[in-house]
Each structure stands twice: as structure tokens, then as C-alpha cells.
């Protein structure tokens, strides 16, 4: 378990203030925030590369606040990989491996196979693609058997295909018991990987919780604006019967939605932006494949329109204009129809 208590870091005119969080051993912890909020500085502080001015960091109840970098057992994967350019992939991975020579060689081969770079062992980093380099960096960080793996925007430089494969790999590592702290500015990464999410703002943590808690119930305007998406539901995707090859059904809490996706059936999350949700007094005849009756539970003005929460069996948030609120007399207790197009719903595989 990683425990961060009231950590302050001051580095080159930038500061982190009173950072506290706990990462249980079986967690995949994502630090989500815009560029420049201090995510990378926090990772560097945890790994010992940036000095902690106040506070403490405990790893498995051992105080590592001021421990030497090489003794922390924290594996760090840089955004740009930072592979050693003068060493082959094999030597890069083997660099931090522990044990006898034969053990280190076997570790290198096993890790290369795990991350899918076994065929690249004799290549130099300069000859690798972005995805391959990221996999090698991951294998290299795993070689010393770190107690906690720190990932700095590991997917940001990858194309869509490589990103999907890397996500699957990270999930596998997590399932095998690896504790992970992952920083990113991409909420999809957070939703698809995290067991716990922390939102960072101006060198501090604005909110911590499970992805569903944070995305469905942002506690501040900053968090709500940053994550930008309020309708997040966990469920299962299934193929729709008939000839609608591009439409699948997604079931969450006993409610079935229609999603335009070509993702394979399986568990995942459905995301719908609140501005894509339409409210009306009757189910409209339109191209919207999703139409549900529900009851308004909350109406809240925001700087950009009004957020209306509708209970259709799950709570859905719609962002409508103030004029629509008056026209439809939207207030708690009002029965209303809620609709959105299948193409407005996004599916994220688990």
C-alpha cells in the first residue's frame, strides 16, 4: 500500500500543496489533470527525483520520504520512455533486473514476452516505434520487481491501435497484482483503467474516489468542467439481434440502451455527454434510438445553461438552456422524457 500524507513539493517555481491519498495494494490509481497541474512533479516526488519539503510517503508502511531513489522500489515509466539509446532492448530491460546472471536473463526474456517485444530484443531503441518503445520502457520498469509502478502519460504518444493494446497490457499487469499510479490528462484512460481516480488542480488534489463517484458526482465546478462528462454507467455490451451491425445494446442497472459501436461484446462503460441529452414532454419521433420516461430529481443552474438530473432508473444529467427550463417547467418531481442518439453514446471496453 502506498500512503501519501500532506506532501508539499517546491520545484523550479512550481509547488504541490498538501497532497494526501492512499493507494491500496490491489489498486490502479489514476491522477487525472490538465497539463501543468503538477502530475509529473508528484510522480517524481514519489520516485525520489524531486525533493519533498513537507509531509511523508509510506510504501508498505515503510517511510520512504527521504529514501534514496535506488532503494525505493518504485518503477517509473517516463512519458517519452527515456530508454538508454546506447543499449539494446535486451540490455535496457535487463538493466534493473535482479538476481544471478541467468536469473536476470530469464527475467528479461519473460518480461519481453509479457509485453510483446520478444522479437525486438537485439534492436536499438532508435529503431522502435512509439508503441514498441513504450512496451520496452514498461518491461524495463518491471524488471527490478517494483512494489509500485509509476506511469507518466504512458499512452499519450501512441496511436489508437497501440493505445488499445497498451491499455490491455496495463490491465493485465494490474490483474496480476501490480500496484499502479498512472498520471494522465485523458478521462477515457482514467475510466477504462482506474479503480481509484484523483483529480488534480493547481498543484493540489481536488477530488478522490472511484471513477463512477468522481465522474457522476463531481464535488466542485472545476472537476465538473474538467471531466466534462457526467453520464457514466458501468454495464455490459451485447450484440443487437437483427441486421443492425453498427448498433449494440448496453445494459446497466436493468436498463437497456442503444450504442453505435463496433466494439466486441463484454463489460465496459457507456459515456453520454450531458449536452447530447434531450428532454421533452413526450417521446419524440426522431432518429434518437434511446428514449426513456423519468422524473426530474434536481435542477441546477451553471454558468453555461442548467443541469437537470432525471431519474430513469439510473440518474441521467441533461444540460439544457434556461429557456427550455421555463418552457418545459422543469423542476424536481416533474415527469419528463429523456432521449439521446445511439451515436451520442460512447462505449469504453473494460
Amino acid at each position, binding site marked *: 500500500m502506498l500512503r501519501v500524507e500532506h506532501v508539499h513539493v517546491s520545484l523550479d517555481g512550481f509547488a504541490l500543496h498538501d497532497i494526501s491519498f492512499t493507494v491500496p495494494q490491489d489498486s490502479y490509481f489514476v491522477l487525472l489533470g490538465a497539463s501543468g497541474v503538477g502530475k509529473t512533479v508528484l510522480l517524481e516526488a514519489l520516485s525520489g527525483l524531486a525533493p519533498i519539503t513537507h509531509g511523508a510517503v509510506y510504501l508498505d508502511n515503510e517511510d520512504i520520504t527521504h529514501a534514496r531513489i535506488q532503494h525505493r522500489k518504485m518503477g517509473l515509466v*517516463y512519458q517519452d520512455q*527515456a530508454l*538508454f539509446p546506447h543499449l539494446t532492448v535486451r540490455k535496457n530491460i535487463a538493466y534493473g533486473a535482479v538476481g544471478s546472471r541467468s536469473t536476470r536473463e530469464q527475467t528479461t526474456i519473460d518480461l519481453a514476452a509479457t509485453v510483446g517485444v520478444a522479437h525486438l530484443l537485439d534492436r536499438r531503441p532508435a529503431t522502435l516505434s512509439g508503441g514498441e518503445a513504450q512496451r520496452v520502457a514498461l518491461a524495463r520498469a518491471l524488471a527490478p520487481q517494483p512494489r509500485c509502478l509509476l506511469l507518466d502519460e504512458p499512452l499519450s504518444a501512441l496511436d489508437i491501435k497501440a493505445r488499445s493494446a497498451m491499455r490491455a497490457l496495463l490491465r493485465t499487469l494490474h490483474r496480476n497484482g501490480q500496484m499502479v499510479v498512472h498520471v494522465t490528462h485523458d478521462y477515457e484512460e482514467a475510466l477504462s483503467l482506474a479503480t481509484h481516480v484523483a483529480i488534480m488542480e493547481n498543484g493540489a488534489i481536488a477530488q478522490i474516489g472511484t471513477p463512477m463517484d468522481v465522474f457522476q458526482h463531481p464535488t466542485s465546478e472545476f472537476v465538473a468542467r474538467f471531466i466534462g462528462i457526467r453520464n457514466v454507467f458501468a454495464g455490459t455490451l451485447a450484440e443487437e439481434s437483427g441486421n443492425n451491425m453498427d448498433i449494440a445494446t448496453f445494459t446497466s442497472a436493468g436498463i437497456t440502451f442503444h450504442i453505435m459501436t463496433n466494439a466486441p461484446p463484454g463489460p465496459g462503460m457507456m459515456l453520454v455527454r450531458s449536452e447530447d441529452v434531450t428532454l421533452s414532454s413526450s417521446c419524440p419521433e426522431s432518429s434518437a434510438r434511446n428514449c426513456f420516461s423519468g422524473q426530474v430529481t434536481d435542477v441546477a443552474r451553471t454558468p453555461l445553461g442548467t443541469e437537470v438530473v432525471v431519474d430513469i432508473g439510473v440518474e441521467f444529467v441533461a444540460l439544457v438552456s434556461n429557456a427550455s427550463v421555463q418552457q418545459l417547467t422543469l423542476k424536481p418531481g416533474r415527469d419528463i422524457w429523456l432521449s439521446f442518439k445511439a451515436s451520442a453514446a460512447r462505449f469504453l471496453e473494460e
Partner: protein
Amino acid sequence: MKTRARHTLASDPLSLVFAALGGMVLLFLIAPLAGMAFNSPLSDLADTAAEKEVRASILLTLWTALAATTICSVAAVPFAWVLARKQFPLKRLVSGIIDLPVVVPHSAAGIAILGFIAPNSCIGGTAERAGIQFVGGAAGIIVAMAFVSVPFLINAARDGFAAAPERLEKAALTLGASPARVFFTISLPLAWRAIVSGMVMMWARGMSEFGAVAIVAYHPIVASVLIYERFGAFGLAHARPVAVLFLGVCLVFFIVVRLLAREDTHAPR
């Protein structure tokens, strides 16, 4: 790429002027050396090469300069890493001190070194009791060469370390490597090209040293002192073949070292 470079040079009048000025500088550097070489008949060169004193002098110059470079690099290269990576009080002053031998007149440097290693000094006396003769010995030549040439190695190595991404050293630390292992397996290999370049420069500068060496150890006689002595005693015609021969030997060594250092290391630059 080459086509584009030629096109740019031909179409830009300013570049043409600069190229012409550059040509004049090159001519200034090459003309005296070429003139010296062309005015030395092969028969004279062969006779000079056959002289035991000349061969011994060139050999002495080569190995003492190499010894000065090798011995100094043991301390100078790690020191260059400290200068490139660490901040400490009076760092600018330290950097200035490193460049001091470059600006001090080398005869003055020789006097300073002599006072430091003379038999009546603490270090010189201790060395003499240990059987090491500085004044009038190869050890003194090595010290004089090292004093005037070590800034070239330190500065080149410091620039080489500074150019290598520090992030790679940090990444190695997070993998559990000790700082010493990081230095030898990451920092040194990434900066080796600049270090070799600095060693070549130091070696070259050491071999060409006259003033400090002549004061500290006129004998055994190194090439620069021999050339001066022949010029003073017999005139230009007798000094020139020794100079050409020494120049030729140095050129061969430098070209070989530079070619070896050009091998691709895949280091980031």
C-alpha cells in the same frame, strides 16, 4: 540535403562573402604548414627520421602527452560530470580557475610549476625521495603538459555530459542502480564522444607545449624543444625537417583517433 545546401550558398551573397572570409582563414592556417612541408625535400626528411635523437624526441613527446592525458582523465572526467550536473557555491569561480592555464603565459606556467615540483619544495622533495625526478625528467614533462592542456579535456567532457539527457541517469537510478553504476554505464557511454574529443585535444595541446616544458624539463628533450634548439643552433633549414616529421606523425595519430571516434554509438545528439 546537399543540393539544398549548395543552392543556398550560391544564391545568398552574404553566405558567399562569409565563405570567402572562411577560405582566407583556412589559407592562413594551411599556407605556413604547407609551405614548410613543400620546402622540406624527402631526402632531408629521411635523413632526419634516421637520427636517433629525433626519433627519441618524438617518441618521448607522444608518450608523455599520452601519459598526461590518461592520468588526468581519471580525475578530470568525473570532475567534468560534477560541473555539468551539480550546483555548488563558487561554481563560476571554479570554472574560471579551470580556464586559467589557457590564458596564463606558458613560460609563467612553467615557472609556477617549477616552484611547485622543485626538489626543495614539499612535493618535489617527497617525490625525489620516492625516486621520481620531476625537474629534468619525464615526470616533469608530464606535469607541465598536463597543467597547460587539462582545461581542454575538462571543458569538452563537461559539455558532453551536459548534452546527455539527465533524465536517463534518473531513469537508471529508479531502476535500482547505484550512482557509480549510473556514471559508468549511462553517463560515460553517452558522453564518450565528447570525452574522446577532449582527450585528443588535450593530447594535442600537450604535445605542442614548449614554454612550460622547456622551463620544467629542458632535458630529456621533447619535439617542440628540439625544433627550437635546432633553429637556434643551426637555423631554419635544420629545424624544418624535424617540424615536418613531427607534424606528420601527429597528423597520422589524430586521423586514426578521430576515425575511431566517428563510429556510430547510437547516442542521442
